[in-house]
Structure formats: C-alpha cells, structure tokens
C-alpha cells in the first residue's frame, strides 16, 4: 500500500510538471498544445542518449529542459507566430500543434531506428530504472521528481511574481493588446512561455524512463492525463496544474492498484480510462477546475 502511494506521488510529480506547461501555454497563447506529447518524448530520449554515452541520466533533466525548450521555440516561431500574425483562429493554431507533434513523432522514430539499426541499441524500449539509485529506502526518481517539482514551482513563482519579466508575462496573459500598448514585446513574452513550458515537459520526460517503460509513443499515451490534470486543476490558475496532477495521479495509481487486487491484474491495461472519465466528469460538473472551488469567495 505504502509502495503504491510512493509510486503515485512520483507519477503525480511528473504529471504536474507536464500539466504546468499546458496550463501556462493556455494562459499565454490560448492554445491547447498537443505538441506537449513530443516535448516530453524529446526529454525521454535526451536522458536516454546521455545514459548511452555513459553519463548520469539525471543530467538529462537539465539538458532535456533546454532541448525540449528549443523544440517548443521552433514550433512557436515557425508555425504559431506566423499564424497568430495572420489572426488565425484558435482551432487552426491547435491543428498546427497537432501537426507539429506528428512531425516530431516521426523524427523521434527516425532517431530510435537509427540507434537500433546502426548501433544495435534497443532504442524502442527505454527503461532506465535498473540504473537508478536508492536513498533511505526511497527510489532516486521519487526523490528527484518531487524535489524538482517543488524547486521548479518556487522558481516559477518567483519569476512570475517577483520579477518585472514575470509581471510582463502576467500582463500578456491578462490583456495582450494593452501589454503591446504599454511597450511590451508580446511576441517575445509568448516565446518565453513556450520555452518554459517545453522545458518543464522536457524535465518530466527526462525522468520518465526511471519510472516506467517508455518509447516514442509514450507522449501520445500521456497527452490525455496531461490535459486532464491541467483542466481538472483549472486553466485559469497556473498552480491549478500541480493540484490537478496530484489528484489525478494519486487517483489513478491508488484506484488501479486497488482494483487489480479485487478484480485481477488485467484491469491495469485499462488504467488510461481514469483520466478520460475524470475529464468528462470535470467538464460537466466543475468546468473551471478545482481551483475555482478553492478560490470561490
């Protein structure tokens, strides 16, 4: 039981890091970003590549932040910004993120095939947990993912609330045209939000192979829980994302482990139904997320 809970906390921390970016982008660019799936996968393959080269895969959190941040910036500057300038609808922007995601999925697959055929490395099943360390009975990935989540949340809070760039970012979230009229380079602020969101997804991705078996399609499998966590928490508040991440992450792990004890292990296969059902229930009963209940005055 306690093991399930610890595993749940690890999963929740990773989910929170991914959902944070989705919420951030929704607040700044107003677009549901489907390319978040690839941002995560680039993180996975960054730490995997580091491990192959003999480095500590945890270095992948730092490098993964940068790699996925850059992948996000390319999406922003190559597709979204030109479309935004032409005043394309949110629907078109959303389709652009989906298209980019499929393109990046292709690139990751090519990279995995390249590793597999040229170096005979099993690059389609990435699992690094055997290399993980343990400390006072806890798995390394649990310690690193929870503490990174806490540190990154604090840094994000300081950036947003204690710096002028953060105030500019919040201003862009609230009213981009007034921000422009006040001399703020909105496009640059949006780019910053894409870099940060991509980076957070990259960190989560870099940690994932320590937690579970991953492959190029892991991002696509996780996109539903990511969106669910983000919407469950509430899209209007950035800090709703970790809240949603933990509710959903713990619910999924605890519920599925309990059910598999009662019904049988085969039920594990259907664990992805939890986020879908949660999403439907949230959209019907608390469309503005859990944060809206907490903040209600």
């Amino acid at each position, binding site marked *: 039981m306690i093991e399930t809970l610890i595993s749940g906390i690890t999963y929740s921390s990773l989910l929170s890091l991914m959902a944070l970016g989705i919420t951030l982008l929704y607040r700044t660019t107003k677009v549901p970003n489907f390319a978040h799936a690839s941002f995560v996968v680039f993180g996975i393959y960054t730490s995997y590549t580091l491990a192959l080269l003999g480095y500590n895969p945890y270095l992948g959190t730092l490098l993964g932040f940068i790699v996925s941040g850059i992948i996000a910036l390319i999406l922003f500057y190559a597709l979204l910004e030109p479309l935004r300038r032409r005043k394309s609808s949110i629907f078109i922007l959303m389709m652009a993120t989906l298209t980019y995601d499929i393109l990046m999925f292709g690139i990751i697959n090519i990279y995995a095939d390249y590793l597999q055929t040229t170096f005979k490395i099993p690059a389609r099943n990435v699992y690094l947990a055997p290399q993980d360390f343990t400390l006072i009975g806890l798995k390394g990935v649990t310690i690193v993912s929870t503490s990174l989540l806490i540190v990154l949340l604090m840094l994000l809070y300081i950036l947003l609330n204690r710096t002028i760039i953060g*105030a500019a970012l*919040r201003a862009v979230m*609230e009213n981009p045209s*007034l*921000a*422009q*009229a006040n001399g703020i380079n909105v496009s640059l602020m949006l780019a910053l939000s894409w870099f940060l969101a991509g980076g957070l997804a990259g960190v989560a991705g870099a940690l994932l192979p320590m937690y579970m078996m991953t492959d190029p399609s892991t991002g696509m499998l996780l996109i539903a829980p990511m969106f669910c966590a983000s919407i469950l928490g509430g899209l209007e508040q950035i800090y709703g994302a970790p809240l949603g991440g933990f509710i959903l992450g713990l619910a999924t792990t605890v519920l599925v482990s309990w059910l598999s004890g009662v019904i049988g292990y085969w039920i594990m296969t259907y664990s992805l139904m939890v986020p879908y059902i949660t999403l439907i229930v949230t959209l019907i009963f608390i469309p503005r997320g859990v944060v809206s209940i907490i903040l209600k005055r």
Partner: protein
Amino acid sequence: MPILYTKKIFSGYGDLRVLFNINFSAEDKKITVVVGPNGAGKTTLLNTITGVATIHSGEVVFKNRRLNGMPPYSIARMGIAYVPQMGNIFSNLTVEENLRLSGYFLSENELLDRLEYVYSMFPVLKEFRSRRAGTLSGGERRMLAIGLGLMRKPEVMLLDEVTTDLAPKIVKKVLETVVRLRDEAKLTIVLVEQHAARALQIGDKAYLLVSGSIRYEGDPQELLRHPEFSKLYLGIS
C-alpha cells in the same frame, strides 16, 4: 507644425474597411478632440495611429517618421501613449506593478522618478499602491490608466473615452487632469469622446467623425453650433 498626423488614411481590420480618406493632425502641446456617434470609427483612428488596425493606404507620421507597419510596442516606446477605451489596466496586477510594468524599459532611476511623478499627479494611487488594480473604483481606474501612459514620459497621449460611465463630479476631475497634462506636463493630447459637449469645452481643435469620414475640422466651440452636430447629438449630453 503638427507633431502627429495622418495623410489620406484608409484603414480597418483585415479586409474590413472602417476609415476613409482621413487627414487628421494633432498640434503640438494642444488638446485635439475627436467626437462622433457609436461606430463612427473614433477608436479605429487611434488603433490606426498605434499600429493595431490594418492600414490599407495612406500614412501615419509622428515627428517626421512614418509609423506604418511598425509593431504597437515600438510605437508605444517612441513616445505615443495610448489609453484604450476598454481593458486599459491589468486588473490582476497591483497598482504599482501596473505602473512599473509600463515603464519596464526605463532605467531604475528614471523609473522611480516617473513613479513619483505619477503618484504626485494622482495621490490616491500612491495610497493604494499595493492593492490589486481590479479592486479600484471606476474613477481610480481611469487615473491608473492615464498613469500607465504617463510612466513612459510620452509626448503624445491618446485618450479613448476616459470619462465614459463616470459620475459627473468625477468626469470634471478627469477632464481637469487632461488640461493639467497639457499645461503642466506639456503633452499633446488626442481626446476621443462620445459625450461631446464637456470635452469640446476644453479642446483647442475638434474633429467630427461620422461613418468613417471627417465631417468637420476646426474650432471646438464652432462645432457645438454646427448643424450636423446638433442633428447627431440632439438629446445627448
């Protein structure tokens, strides 16, 4: 010599045409009032100057520089402050965050200077400096909106309906502030107003805009007696 003018402007939003052949000019350190009925294109004129609307032809010139095609944030940094009609403050930010943000590319010394200046102009803002701007009253919001524009030490200030929906006493106070901006801060002001009579009393020059075209240009007092004006405004203010 006008500090800011438009020449044969045709503009709108995307393919939508709103303004037709507008020759508008704002004289240096004077108040130019633009009046006209709902949907006449007054806001669009300000949006054209500030780079928000789409210019189909013609040009916008500020201090002998063409503004056509420049992004709104660069135009803002050149010394044109725009106080929009709606959503003109960041209600989730505190009063001081609003002001600091507006001057964020100033040096720290300059910033503090400007902050002191805005607070001396509007003492009530200093009192409420750490309050969330969304909690201010209607009049205080207009002061903050004007304060945002003042932070960047502009030469021109474009004010879009800053008195709309305010109590008569507050309207008077806001218009007195506008006069002070001209006389003390030596600003060039473009004042867009739908409720025209009071604004015309403080103006140095006036335009009447109807259906995207200029119908009158000249003395504000004269406009009050203009037949088309009384026809349009019969019953309004």
